[in-house]
């Protein structure tokens, strides 16, 4: 009926007339295209090491920020493709799953700079004399900080697609392609976007570290915010650090507004739960595009094209039962197990051959004690962050008005690369003659403590109102209120936040335990400092040892502490 009325009023014609929003939207799109083009041209240019040409003038920062951002974007797209393919294979084949999912667990626990030290040479050889080599190495490093949790999220979504929708898709005889676009991709979308945002934070942290890297005698510097900061550190310029922090703040805010906000709002429609949200996300940019008439009618054509690709069949519908004769299951399984064992054995043997001759017992002992020190730091820091942020988070979460203002700030702080602030802390330590072994430690959790805060806020604001009222009626107060009412209620949220915070702290230890200011180098000891030091020296066997020990510690902590806690929280807070 609406359509009839519009047709009568000439609505069809009016729809095609551009409005002011079109102008704004077109300018936005063009500006983005020009920016991307500029950055891409520079990336493919011949290689000139920029170590001494990085300018500390604030005027150079916008271009540096752009280059850094484009690296992030490329890595994000790569992570997305990787996640979809990897997770789909893992979810569709039980045999692949057996290998891929534990592998993902390990990949996730390897400190990100570990990948960098081993791949840098490869990428530089791949594109000799072109800037593409170091660019690829940096992008790959960012990719490794983003891909794993996205892949994991996609895999989990694929495994939890509601049964009735799966059955409906089979009954409607979707082909695998249609099933992916109609069912699996939309269902996984909210989780994937949330994890992309998380990945982004990790990415910012390491893009800064990956732009100016030296592994033994290989070193390169790419123009970007990271190398700007590195240069500012060698020049001991606090002013330049200040400018970098400002530039990063603006960049992250823009990124959020232009990319993630619109995506989050758009992904709203993919939520399966039919309940209303407490805070409805809103994006001015998406609104702009949705109301730009000319772009909408142009976009309709595009959308129809995409839609027809998504609806194409490409393959016959999957027969539910296949009648093909095949080898008995046990035989195939046996062969598969044998293949896995062979691959494992071969890897272990080549590792020993590679690292064995140079390493001895003393190495192992020093790495283990360094690991112990870092473990102690992470534990103490998580406990401290918990003691501070849980009460704050609950206090905020129970006041809806405060949530509206505090929650975005906490999320912003989580996304902000904390290593930009490191030099400020280092200068303080130097001026006040503090003990580096103690005072460098907080840097490890500087960036990731916010996950505890905003998860607790989310938990407290989702706390059922009737339970709070019941607690009020029975006058449950003080310690008992915390122990019996609030803490059990926010526990699952807290665990989620603490897992992220602890994983991030391990990762950050490489950057946080060994810092420098001009010629002065501060080291806090610990596994992170060990890996950083060996990377500097280009001592590959010891880098490998350090990384292996860190992976084992992270996996052990996840398996022995966080996962049982997570299962407990799931079991105890359920009511069915």
């Amino acid at each position, binding site marked *: 009926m609406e359509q009839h009325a519009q047709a009568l009023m000439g609505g069809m014609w009016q729809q095609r007339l551009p409005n002011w929003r079109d102008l704004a939207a077109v300018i936005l799109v063009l500006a983005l295209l020009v920016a991307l083009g500029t950055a891409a041209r520079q990336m493919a240019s011949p290689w000139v090491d920029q170590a001494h040409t990085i300018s500390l003038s604030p005027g150079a920062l916008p271009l540096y920020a752009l280059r850094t951002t484009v690296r992030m974007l490329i890595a994000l797209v790569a992570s997305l493709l990787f996640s979809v393919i990897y997770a789909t294979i893992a979810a569709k084949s039980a045999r692949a799953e057996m290998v891929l999912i534990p592998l993902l667990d390990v990949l996730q626990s390897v400190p990100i700079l570990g990948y960098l030290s081993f791949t840098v040479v490869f990428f530089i050889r791949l594109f000799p004399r072109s800037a593409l080599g170091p660019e690829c190495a940096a992008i790959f490093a960012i990719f490794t900080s983003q891909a794993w949790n996205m892949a994991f999220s996609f895999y989990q979504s694929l495994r939890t697609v509601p049964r009735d929708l799966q*059955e409906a898709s089979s009954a409607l005889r979707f082909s695998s392609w249609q099933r992916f676009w*109609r069912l699996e991709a939309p269902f996984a979308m909210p989780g994937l976007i949330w994890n992309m945002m998380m990945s982004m934070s990790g990415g910012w942290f390491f893009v800064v570290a990956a732009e100016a890297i030296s592994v033994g005698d290989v070193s390169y510097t790419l123009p970007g915010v990271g190398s700007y900061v590195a240069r500012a550190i060698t020049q001991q310029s606090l002013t330049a650090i200040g400018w970098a922090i400002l530039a990063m703040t603006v960049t992250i805010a823009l990124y959020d507004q232009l990319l993630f906000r619109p995506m989050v709002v758009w992904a709203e429609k993919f939520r399966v739960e039919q309940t209303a949200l407490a805070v409805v996300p809103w994006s001015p940019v998406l609104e702009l595009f949705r109301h730009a008439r000319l772009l909408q009618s142009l976009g309709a054509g595009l959308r129809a094209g995409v839609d027809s690709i998504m609806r194409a069949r490409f393959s016959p*519908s999957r027969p539910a039962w296949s009648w093909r004769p095949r080898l008995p299951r046990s035989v195939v399984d046996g062969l598969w197990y044998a293949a896995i064992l062979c691959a494992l054995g071969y890897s272990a043997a080549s590792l020993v051959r590679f690292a064995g001759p140079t390493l001895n017992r003393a190495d192992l002992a020093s790495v283990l004690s360094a690991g112990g020190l870092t473990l102690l730091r992470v534990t103490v820091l998580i406990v401290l962050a918990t003691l501070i942020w849980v009460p704050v988070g609950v206090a905020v979460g129970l006041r809806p008005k405060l949530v509206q203002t505090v929650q975005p700030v906490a999320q912003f702080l989580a996304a902000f690369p904390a290593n930009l602030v490191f030099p400020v802390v280092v200068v303080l330590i130097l001026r006040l003659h503090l003990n580096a072994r103690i005072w460098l430690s907080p840097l490890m959790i500087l960036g990731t403590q916010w996950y505890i805060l905003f998860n607790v806020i989310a938990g407290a604001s989702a706390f059922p109102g009737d339970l709070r009222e019941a607690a009020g009626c029975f006058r449950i107060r003080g310690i008992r209120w915390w122990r019996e009412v609030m803490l059990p209620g926010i526990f699952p949220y807290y665990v989620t936040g603490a897992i992220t915070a602890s994983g991030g702290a391990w990762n950050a230890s490489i950057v946080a335990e060994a810092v420098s200011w001009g010629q002065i180098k501060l080291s806090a000891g610990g596994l992170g400092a060990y890996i950083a030091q060996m990377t500097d020296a280009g001592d590959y066997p010891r880098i490998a040892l350090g990384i292996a020990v860190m992976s084992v510690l992270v996996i052990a902590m996840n398996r022995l502490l966080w996962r049982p806690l997570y299962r407990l929280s799931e079991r105890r807070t359920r009511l069915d």
Partner: protein
Amino acid sequence: MDLRPSDPVLELCAVSMAFPKPSGEPLPVLAQVNISMREGEILGLLGRSGSGKSTLLRIAAGLIKPSAGEVRYHGAPLAGPSKGIAVVFQTFALFPWLTVLENVEAGLDALALPRPESRRRALAAIDLIGLDGFQSAYPRELSGGMRQRVGFARAIVTEPTALLMDEPFSALDVLTAETLRTDFLDLWTGQQLSTRAALLVTHNIEEAVLMCDRIVVLASNPAHIAAEVPVSLARPRDRLEEAFRGIVDQIYSILTSRSLESIGAQRQLRGGAALPRVSVNQISGLIEKFAAAPYDGHAELATVATQLALQSDELFPTAEALHMLAFAEIKQNALRLTAAGRIYAQSDTEARKRLFREHLLQFVPLAAHIHRVLEEREDHQAPRLRFETELEDHLTRQDAERTLRVVTGWGRYAELFSYDDRTRRFAVPV
């Protein structure tokens, strides 16, 4: 519509289904079921929850492969979901991210039609099913009834020959369900559908009699056909008409006699059979209702169901539990309280618990078994897993789990044993 019986559209031939037990032997859940959907009829598949009727529908739709036997569609064996067979789901199974129009069009995706053609057909289906004006709405904006209309539109848009409906009205409120039934019957009798045969899976006896031309009654453990009841009443049918009530009563008596049989089987299996999924509150509630006026300890099940607005799948398990616990006796179509049942109705909580405890020990072998094991053990404890494994020799994992839940609830009420979910252990209460 031509009601002459002819070649079946869709046929289940000697279909069986079995799952492996922990020991590796097969545990049958469907035994040799033969069902044929004939041209021009709505076939009802009536049974309790857990009687395997949804599994049968999924086998007929090609969604599940039977362990033995085959499905024939127009005489040819079926190997998976096929063109011409459409399913309507109990939970609607709509894609939340697609609008009503897109959801209906999704039904045509498999045909790879040109865009204008699929749009035209989707709009026609939407029009037919009474969804006009809702095209651009998302499922979350719709009421349950409207959602199920989308489910119907998505099914009929493919112009299926066979329409399979899995409890399509059971997630709706009473009034909405009745409207949807009437609308569907109008389309069916008005010959506005291309569908030649329909299958309606339901646990609602009146719904089956209202809609179907023939009703197959399923009995469980393993599921098999207990009876086949033709319904040759003219449409539209009147629920209050004598012939209608007669068929409803007939089905009630079939189901009651099945109940008695299953209780007999329970006794024979000495604790290895499924218990009806009934809580102590439901048991007490029904005893109190029966003890009070106007029943005074005796009533026909069909009457009680109507007067108390109970679904047959709520009433039968409770009645069975009463019979099993010897608080009442099922005879023909009626339930009569025993002396113990009358005493129970008049007792206070403590006395009820004592009585329940005695009857539990005497008449429910599984409860007695758990009690005995706990008494024999020195620490008076036993892991739940032990009983679970024992039960899985006779029941599917799901049924074993449910049965243990039921007996845990009864045992806790009777203070016969206690159960700690954290340690997953039964113990003698202190």
